[in-house]
């Protein structure tokens, strides 16, 4: 798999911090990605949860933000000076430990994704909403959430690479 252009961590982080402030200043909205998945659920679901609060109208800014993300990914790839390609690979490290059959890997990722989706709604946000946005607001619950994210990630990856490799 050819490589995307990647800036150094502090540079990438600083620009993302500036983006957070700019989005607030321009639009008055907090940075966040996970809530937008519920907009797609709201198109299909009759559950009351998807009719109230953030989801009172599903066609709102979060939907359009979610649709913008893949566009940004495409631009990032096309400006990296690499040949565009569609790939099932998940990189050298994950490919050695994850199921290699397409069905097995799809089932694994859908199950892992379900944990992400359910957990994000329980936690009230994801890495963007809590770790970047919330911690920049010095919001204590967001610090608790961020610690929880890292505990979960460390446990999962240590287990994955210890037992599956």
């Amino acid at each position: 798999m050819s490589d995307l252009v990647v800036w150094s961590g502090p540079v990438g982080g600083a620009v993302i911090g500036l983006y957070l402030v700019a989005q607030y200043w321009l639009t008055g909205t907090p940075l966040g990605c996970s809530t937008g998945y519920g907009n797609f659920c709201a198109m299909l679901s009759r559950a009351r949860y998807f009719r109230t609060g953030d989801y009172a109208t599903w066609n709102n800014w979060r939907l359009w933000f979610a649709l913008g993300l893949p566009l940004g990914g495409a631009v990032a790839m096309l400006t990296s000076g690499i040949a565009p390609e569609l790939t099932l690979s998940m990189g050298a490290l994950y490919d050695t430990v994850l199921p290699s059959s397409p069905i097995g890997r799809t089932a694994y990722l859908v199950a892992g994704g379900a944990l992400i989706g359910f957990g994000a709604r329980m936690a009230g946000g994801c890495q963007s909403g809590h770790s970047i946005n919330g911690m920049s607001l010095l919001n204590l619950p967001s610090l608790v959430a961020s610690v929880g994210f890292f505990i979960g990630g460390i446990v999962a990856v240590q287990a994955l690479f210890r037992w599956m490799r």
Partner: protein
Amino acid sequence: MKYAFLPLGALFGFLLSRAGATTYDYYAKLFLFEDLQLVWVIGTAVVVGIPGLALLKRARARALLTGEPIELRGKPMTRELPLGAVMLGVGWGLCAACPGTVLTMVGEGKLSALATVIGIALGTYGYGVWHDAKRVRSSQAP
């Protein structure tokens, strides 16, 4: 106003990609403590974000596109937050993706990310159904 979020989402996705947050290997290396690229990204974003948002607050800035006052309010603590955060973290490590980066990966041509996106949507859907059921139960309690 909502259509402005299409280019904003694209810009944020582009930045996530350039920060390395759409490169699978960085997730494995992060949680194996081999390369802390993504800790640097989150850490520096917060270090820049804290004074930036404090300035907006102090200036009582209004949103440029709407003229409305900017509400800088943190999310509340709930009883389910810690468990949900750990669940999300487990999925984060297993799939090498969070809700924002995985949509960006799809745009980069990483097709396996589509399976994760479908999983996240299903998990979100499941939470909504569970939340409704919980509400009904609590309203029926004596």
